């Protein structure tokens, strides 16, 4: 094969595959969402938005993302800077910190269920130290705040690792000379972090935040495992439309709403953390 055509032949399988299983489904999902008995309409969107569970599930999803993502960002930045200045045991610590990377959201939900359920470890501990007399039903409907806390903790526990990996890789790409120069000019460690690490880490921060925020809007199994139906989120509503209500038009409309939110946030993050033209590391 001629060398000019070879690269195209090599990317052809991926392109075809993604056209069939990525682009085409998006066309289909829009058709489902906008379609109705008589041509195009916004009927499904009106149904979905006016349903009483829509505001609460939207609010839950956004609140959860707003609570979880900043904590994860701070935590992963802390962990990443700690790892880079570690001399001994770096590999072991990194292995331990990245374990949650391979754990599914469902498993994470089940793990935190072991802690928060009524006969779970948190109750055992609190009764053990005498803080409460009898086990509390933490995950029942009387305690919406604790359900929220349990879900947020499970999400922070599970999904900080993905940001950590991206940030550690990003910090590794920053040349040591910048730090040496900063040190010569008398910058404190905190100043070096603010003035050298953070600005040069912008591309990695961008990637980490986009991945995390989009995943935060997709939160599903953790919520189902810990909150059941007490804590509706957008994805669990889509699932309910598809299965319990057998209304795939409404499910598709809600899916497009999730998609739109994800795209808006991606664009906002891209814009807020954009790398100035011509500036490279």
């Amino acid at each position, binding site marked *: 094969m001629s060398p000019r055509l*070879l690269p195209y032949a090599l990317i052809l399988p991926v392109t075809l595959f993604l056209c069939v299983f990525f682009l085409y489904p998006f066309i289909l999902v829009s058709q489902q969402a906008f379609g109705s008995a008589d041509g195009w309409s916004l009927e499904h969107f009106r149904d979905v938005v006016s349903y009483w569970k829509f505001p609460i599930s939207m609010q839950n999803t956004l609140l959860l993302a707003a609570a979880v993502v900043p904590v994860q960002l701070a935590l992963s930045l802390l962990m990443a800077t700690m790892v880079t200045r570690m001399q001994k045991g770096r590999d072991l610590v990194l292995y331990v910190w990245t374990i949650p990377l391979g754990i599914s959201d469902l498993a994470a939900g089940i793990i935190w269920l072991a802690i928060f359920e009524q006969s779970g470890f948190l*109750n055992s501990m609190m009764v053990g130290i005498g803080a409460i007399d009898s086990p509390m039903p933490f995950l029942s409907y009387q305690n919406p705040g604790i359900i929220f806390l349990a879900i947020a903790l499970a999400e922070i526990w599970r999904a900080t690792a993905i940001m950590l990996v991206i940030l550690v890789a990003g910090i590794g790409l920053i040349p040591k000379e910048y730090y040496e120069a900063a040190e010569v000019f008398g910058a404190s460690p905190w100043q070096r972090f603010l003035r050298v690490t953070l600005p040069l880490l912008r591309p990695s921060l961008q990637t980490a935040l986009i991945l995390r925020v989009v995943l935060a809007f997709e939160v599903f199994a953790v919520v189902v495992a810990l909150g059941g139906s007490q804590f509706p989120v957008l994805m669990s509503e889509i699932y309910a439309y598809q299965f319990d209500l057998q209304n795939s038009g409404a499910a598709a409309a809600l899916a497009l709403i999730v998609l739109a939110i994800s795209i808006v946030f991606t664009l906002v993050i891209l814009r807020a953390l954009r790398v100035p033209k011509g500036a490279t590391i």
Partner: protein
Amino acid sequence: MTHASMAAPAPKTEPNPTPVTPVRNSGRYLYAATVILLCAWVLVPLYFLLVNTLSSPEQVSTFPKSFIPEFDLGSLQFFAGFQGILNALKNSIIVASMTMVMSILFGAPAGYALSRFEFRGKETFRVLILLTRAFPLPLLALPLAVLFIRTGLDDTTFGLALVHTTLALPFAVLITFSLFSGIPVELEEAAWTLGCTRFTAFTKVVLPLILPGITASAIFAFVISWNEVFAAAVLTIENRTLTAFLLQTLGEAPLHLKFAGGFILVVPALIFIFAVRKYLFSMWGIANR
């Protein structure tokens, strides 16, 4: 700091380093304590799951709970004997294996093309691949459910594997791109001058070097599929994967079944991170630019 305190007018008899050392030391203790605390934050919940899994079904629901496992295999036996669960486990492995093979088979050639060739549309292609990750991909399962019923792929492991491949493929392309970029093109050029064709140079020189990295990214694809819940739950009814099975029984299943199931889900993750730990950062480093 050190120089400043040394230069300070100290009594000649005993140079007193105390103003510096305690601060340093306490800083170091704080650092070590934080590292240990963060390790515990990851490990302790996993330990609790282990305790629950290795307890008898009765012990799991008793109160207060023992913090030491009694090494009873009752929960795991109950798990293995539960109607349909071994089948779900088998389906999970089949789907994940198919995903692994397909994403490498389709993804690696594109990764090679990106690392070795300059061609028109290369940057567009790369950006489009990057952008797929900004989309909530599990949502694709909704329209595909309809499409699969029409084509007879509904409720099959292969149909689900196709969706999971869509999830894993962008990662496979970007990761293999970064892996191939790490192998000097000069090696290949030397092979050409020694009489290799483009293809034999690839199989004899590049492939042996890249194989460990390819294995790592294959494992990554396996775990993406193994962990996926939403699409699996939407697309399968009879042939459920383990995640879909556990999700659908969450409401009524006894606690010990949930914990044993969670444990079985976690074990491959521990092995996975251990197996690919060397590649984790090189894979992500370049792949995310």
